[in-house]
């Protein structure tokens, strides 16, 4: 397929935020956004499982800033994306590469590789990338964690169906559509699910 090179989304250096602007952006993050970033980092790390190799959510937050400050890695397009959403995207990219065991220097932002073909359709090569073969120990740990979550949701049918959909790789909007549920019903179950999964993690940590 012929790709339109002009449509590359790699950010020109002059549009990237300076260190001073990044520092100011950290100071102006709201309490709510800081909370979202922390939770986001925690869930992404739990999704990596043992492939995290001892790294925690704080490492992911630090690495997102380090990558943003490094002109050769992930620049923040200050005029186009809010800082909180930029950090979220960077954490998603870094955690995906941690999971896949890629060298961090080779990691790229998803937006950097998306191209537009001649008919204007976006092409994302990452969507076609094959998942790595599972490591037996990591696979067993993931199986146990999933099994525990499935037990927790067993008495809550709608939550169990949502978890099933997520496991299969469906997005929130796809799950709502498939199950024919409203946004309110979905959010109620998600709220319960987040709390249940978080409490389970806290109990596990207290036993360590």
């Amino acid at each position, binding site marked *: 397929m012929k790709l339109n090179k002009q449509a590359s989304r790699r950010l020109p250096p002059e549009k990237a935020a300076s*260190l001073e602007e*990044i*520092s100011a952006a*950290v*100071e102006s*993050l*709201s*309490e*709510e956004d*800081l*909370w*979202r*970033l*922390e*939770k*986001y980092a925690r*869930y*992404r790390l*739990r*999704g*990596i*499982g043992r*492939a995290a190799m001892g790294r925690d959510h*704080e490492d992911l*937050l*630090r690495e997102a*800033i*380090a990558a943003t*400050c*490094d002109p050769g890695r992930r620049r923040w397009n200050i005029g186009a994306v809010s800082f909180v959403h930029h950090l*979220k995207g960077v954490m*998603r990219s870094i955690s995906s590469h941690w*999971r896949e065991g890629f060298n961090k220097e080779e990691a790229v932002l998803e937006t950097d590789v998306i191209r537009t073909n001649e008919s204007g359709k976006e092409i994302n090569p990452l969507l076609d990338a094959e*998942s790595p073969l*599972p*490591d037996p120990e*990591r*696979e*067993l740990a*993931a*199986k146990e*964690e*999933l099994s525990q*979550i499935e037990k927790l949701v067993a008495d809550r049918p709608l939550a169990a169906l949502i*978890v099933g959909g*997520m*496991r*299969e*790789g469906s*997005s*929130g909007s796809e799950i709502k559509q498939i199950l024919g549920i409203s946004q309110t019903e979905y*959010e109620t179950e*998600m*709220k319960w*699910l*987040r709390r249940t*999964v978080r409490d389970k993690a806290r109990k596990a940590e207290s036993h360590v």
Partner: protein
Amino acid sequence: MSDKTRNYEQELASLMNNLAESVFEMSDDEVRTEMKKNGDSTDAVRGILRQAVKDCQQRNLIEAQQRYEERIAALSSKKFSLPESIQEMRDMLNSILTSNPAVGSALLTAQHRDFSDLPDEEVPGYLKQLFELGVIDDTAAMGDDE
């Protein structure tokens, strides 16, 4: 779906990634309610981000200092016709900078806002940089000295 065909790592990642995304679908009011309910504080998170930025700034300064030292080391290996005493070198530097103020501001580092504060041991280095940049002519400088 049988166990043999299931990829548990992928399933766990999909589940957790969905939960991660859902956090960004919460309104500010919902977040505040959750924070209040759990007694969550965000001070630590801001501290982590703040420190990470400081680390980057320090790393840049260290790298700039290393580049400067490498440049000075490279210049030291070259031969330049410099005056013998530090005072003569300082006079020469001041004379050049008075007639070329733009050169002076380009050479100043964060450590030395004014050439009058320049430590003696750094004066030869700055003069060598001016030779290297072609701001002063080696023959002319020698002629001046003689």
